[in-house]
C-alpha cells in the first residue's frame, strides 16, 4: 500500500478513528491495533515477506532479552553476534548475494577460471534495509546497556513495524520511539493539525515535484549519449530535485501520519540543498541513516580520533557502506566514495562542524559567500547523483563526459517546461521555510484563517492539477 494510493486514503482514516476511540481504554489496546494495522499495511505488498518481518522481530526481541539476562560477557557477545549475523544474513541473501556472485564470476573469468554463478533472483522484500537497521540499533543499545530490553513483544513489534516508517524510514532508535510506544498518548489539536500540514506538503513534494521530474530524468538518463551537455546537466539537477522531493516527501508524510497518531518520529531532512559544505549536507540529508552509521559504525571504529589515516579509513568505510546500503551496484559504491572524498578535506582541516546553524538565518537572502558555498555544495552533490542514478558506471561516465562538451552552452532539450517552473517555485517555498522543521510548519500561521486556508487550497489544487497522472513508486522503496 502506497501513501499516495486510494487504498491508504481509506486505510488511514479507519485506523485513525478506531485508534483514538480506544484511547479511553488503554494505550496497550492502541498498540495492538497499530501492530495489526502495520502488518496489514505490509502484507498489502506481499504477505510472504510478512513472515520474514515477524521472524526478524521475534529474533531481535529474544536476543535483547537474552543479552540482558546473561551475565557473562562472552555469552552476551554470542547472542549479539547471532542477532546481527542472522539479520545481516537475510539482508545479504536478498540484497547482495546475486551481485557478489556475479562479480566473483567476472573476476574468476579474468584470471582464466570459468565459473558459472548460481543466482537466486530473489525479490527484495520491501523495507528490509530499514527494519533490519531498526532491529540492529535495538540489539546494540541493549548490549551496550543504553536501554533496558522490552519484555512486551507487542511493544517491540510496533517499534519495528510501525507503518508510517516501516518501508522507507526514518530509521528510528529504540531510545527515542520505545518510550513513546510505552506511554499513553493524548490527542492534541495543534499536533494533529501540524501533522496534516506536513502530510499536505509531503504529498505536494512527491506527487507534483518528484513525479513530474521523474519522466524527464528517465528520458535523459536512459540514453545519455544522445543528449546535449546542457540537457545532461539539467538531468543531474532534476534528479537531485526528484530524489529530494520523493524521499523527503515520503518522510514528511510518515512524520505527519505518525503525528496524527500522537507520535514524534526522528527528523529525516533539514533542507539539505541549502548547505554550505558537504559536512553540513550530511547533517541535513537522510539524517536518521547518517546518524545511525555515525553511532553504530563510525564511532565504534574510532570516529575522528586517531591519526590521519585512521580518519581517512573510517570516513571511507562509512560512506562506502552507506553507498552499498542503497543497493548492490558499483554506481552506489562510487557515489559513496565520491562523498567520502568531498567530506575528507573539511574533516582533516577540522572544519567539518563550522556550519551548524541555518544559512542566512533571519535574512531573506544569503550573502554572496553563502550563495557561492551553496552553489558549490549543490554542484558536487549533483555530480555524485549522476553515479547514483545511472544504470552502470560506463553510462555514468558517458553522462559526465557529455556534460563537458561545447553543447553545454546550448539550450537544453526538455519536452515540458511546467515541471521546471514547479520545481523552481518549490525550491523558493523551501527556502523561505528553511528555519522550520518543514516548509509549511509556520508559514501562513499568522495569517487570518480565510487567507491561510486559501493558501492550503492552492496547494490542494496544485496537487490535483499538476500531479503526474501515472503511478511512480517511491525511490527508496527499492532500497
Amino acid at each position, binding site marked *: 500500500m502506497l501513501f499516495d494510493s486510494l487504498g491508504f486514503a481509506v486505510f488511514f482514516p479507519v485506523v485513525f478513528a478506531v485508534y*483514538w476511540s480506544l484511547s479511553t481504554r488503554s494505550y496497550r489496546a492502541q498498540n495492538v491495533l497499530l501492530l495489526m494495522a502495520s502488518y496489514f499495511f505490509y502484507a498489502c505488498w506481499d504477505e510472504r515477506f510478512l513472515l520474514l518481518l515477524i521472524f526478524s522481530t521475534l529474533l531481535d526481541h529474544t536476543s535483547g532479552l537474552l543479552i540482558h539476562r546473561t551475565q557473562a560477557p562472552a555469552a552476551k557477545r554470542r547472542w549479539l553476534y547471532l542477532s546481527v549475523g542472522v539479520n545481516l544474513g537475510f539482508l545479504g541473501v536478498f540484497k547482495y548475494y546475486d551481485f557478489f556472485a556475479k562479480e566473483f564470476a567476472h573476476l574468476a573469468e579474468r584470471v582464466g577460471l570459468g565459473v558459472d554463478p548460481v543466482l537466486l533472483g530473489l525479490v527484495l522484500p520491501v523495507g528490509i534495509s530499514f527494519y533490519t537497521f531498526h532491529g540492529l540499533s535495538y540489539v546494540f543499545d541493549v548490549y551496550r546497556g543504553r536501554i533496558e530490553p522490552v519484555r512486551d513483544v507487542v511493544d517491540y513489534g510496533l517499534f519495528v513495524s510501525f507503518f508510517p516508517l516501516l518501508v522507507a524510514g526514518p530509521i528510528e532508535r529504540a531510545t527515542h520511539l520505545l518510550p513513546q510506544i510505552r506511554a499513553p498518548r493524548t490527542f492534541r*489539536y495543534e499536533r494533529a493539525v501540524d501533522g496534516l500540514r506536513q502530510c499536505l506538503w509531503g504529498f505536494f513534494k512527491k506527487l507534483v515535484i518528484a513525479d513530474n521530474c521523474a519522466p524527464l530524468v528517465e528520458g535523459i538518463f536512459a540514453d545519455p549519449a544522445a543528449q546535449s551537455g546542457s540537457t545532461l546537466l539539467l538531468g543531474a539537477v532534476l534528479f537531485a530535485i526528484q530524489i529530494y522531493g520523493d524521499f523527503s516527501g515520503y518522510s514528511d508524510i510518515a512524520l505527519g501520519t505518525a503525528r496524527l497518531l500522537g507520535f514524534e518520529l526522528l527528523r529525516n531532512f533539514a533542507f539539505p540543498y541549502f548547505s554550505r559544505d558537504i559536512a553540513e549536507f550530511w547533517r541535513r540529508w537522510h539524517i536518521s541513516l547518517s546518524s545511525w552509521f555515525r553511532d553504530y559504525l563510525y564511532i565504534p571504529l574510532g570516529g575522528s580520533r586517531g591519526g590521519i589515516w585512521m580518519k581517512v579509513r573510517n570516513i571511507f568505510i562509512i560512506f562506502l557502506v552507506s553507498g552499498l546500503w542503497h543497493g548492490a551496484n558499483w554506481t552506489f559504491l562510487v557515489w559513496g566514495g565520491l562523498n567520502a572524498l568531498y567530506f575528507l578535506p573539511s574533516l582533516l582541516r577540522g572544519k567539518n562542524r563550522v556550519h551548524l546553524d541555518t544559512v542566512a538565518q533571519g535574512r531573506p537572502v544569503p550573502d554572496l559567500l553563502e550563495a557561492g558555498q551553496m552553489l558549490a555544495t549543490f554542484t558536487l552533490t549533483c555530480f555524485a547523483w549522476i553515479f547514483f542514478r545511472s544504470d552502470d558506471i560506463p553510462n555514468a561516465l558517458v553522462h559526465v563526459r557529455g556534460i563537458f562538451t561545447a553543447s553545454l552552452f546550448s539550450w537544453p532539450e526538455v519536452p515540458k517546461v*511546467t515541471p521546471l517552473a514547479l520545481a523552481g517555485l518549490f525550491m523558493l517555498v523551501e527556502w523561505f521555510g528553511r528555519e522550520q522543521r518543514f516548509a509549511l510548519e509556520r508559514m501562513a500561521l499568522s495569517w487570518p484563517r480565510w487567507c491561510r486556508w486559501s493558501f492550503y487550497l492552492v496547494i490542494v489544487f496544485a496537487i490535483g*492539477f*499538476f500531479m503526474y497522472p501515472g503511478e511512480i513508486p517511491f525511490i527508496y522503496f527499492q532500497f
Partner: protein
Amino acid sequence: MWRFLRTVLMFALLVVVVYPILVIGTSMAYKHDGFGNVHYALGYHGHLWSRVRDGSVRAPVDVLVVGSSLAYRGCDPRLFAEQGLHMFNLGSSAQTAAQGEVLLRHQLHRLRPRTVVMVVSPDMFEGPGIESALDVMVNDRVDLVTVRMALLTGNVKAWNTVLYAWIRQLLDLDGDFTEPYIAHNGDRYVPGGFVERPKCDHRPSPPRVFGPLAEHQVEAFRRSVAFVKASGARLLLVHPPVTGCCRPSSASSDVAFEWTNAGAYLDMSDLFGASDSAFFCDGRHLNRAGVARFNAALIRAVKQQ
C-alpha cells in the same frame, strides 16, 4: 478531537466547492491545450465528435459495430449498404471495454440495432484506457455512465477532464465547433462512422506483447454483453484480421475465455494468412483491399446469424 474533526470536515467541504472552480477557471484561462491535468481536445483523432453526431444514421440500424480503430478503420458502412444492410460504426480511438460500454449505453436504445458486432482484440482489456476515456468524455456527452468510467480509470487527468467537459457541455460552450471531415493526417470521415486512410503503404509492426487483464475492463465487457443481450439485439464478437505481430494466440487464455463465453465468436485474425503487405497498412489496420475482403466475410457471417 471534535474540534479537529470539525476543522477537517469544513476544509474538505471547501475543497469540494473550490477545487472544481479552480480546475475549470484555470483550464479556460489556458485554452485547455493540455496544460496541467486536463486534456480537452475536441475532435481529437478517430472522429468521435462527428460520429456521435452523424445525421446520416437512421434508427433502426441493421448492424452496430463497436471497437477500437480496428473497428472504425475496418468496417465500412458503404460495403454493408451494397449488401442491403444499414450499418453504423461506433468505434473510437484505442477503445477499451470500458469506453465500449459507455458508447453502447449512449447509443444502443437510440439506434435499436438488430445485430451488434463487437470488434475485439486483447488490448481492449489492458490497463485503464486513459486515451480513449478522454476521447469519449470530451467528444460524446457526459452523464453518470461517463463519470463512472472516468472514476474507474483511477487517473486524475480523467477526473479533471470529465469535470471540465461536463461544465462545458452544461453551458454549451462548444456548440459552434465543427470537426473537419479530413484530419491533418489525411484520414477522411465517411458518414456512417468509417474512417478511410486514402493512402497507406504497408509498414510492418513489431511483435506486440499484451498486458494482463484489468479487472474493471473485464467487468465492463461483461456488463456490455449483458446490456446488448437484454436489448434483444443479436451479438457477434469478431476478432478482425491482423498480421502475425498481433494475433490473439499471443494473448493470455483468459482473454479468449471472455470472448468465447460471451456469445457467438468469430476469429478472423488469420483471414489473410501471411499476405500482410497486400491487405494491411501496418500490423493491425487494413487497407482498402483488406477492408473489402474482411467486410465481405463479416457480412456473410451477419446474414447467416
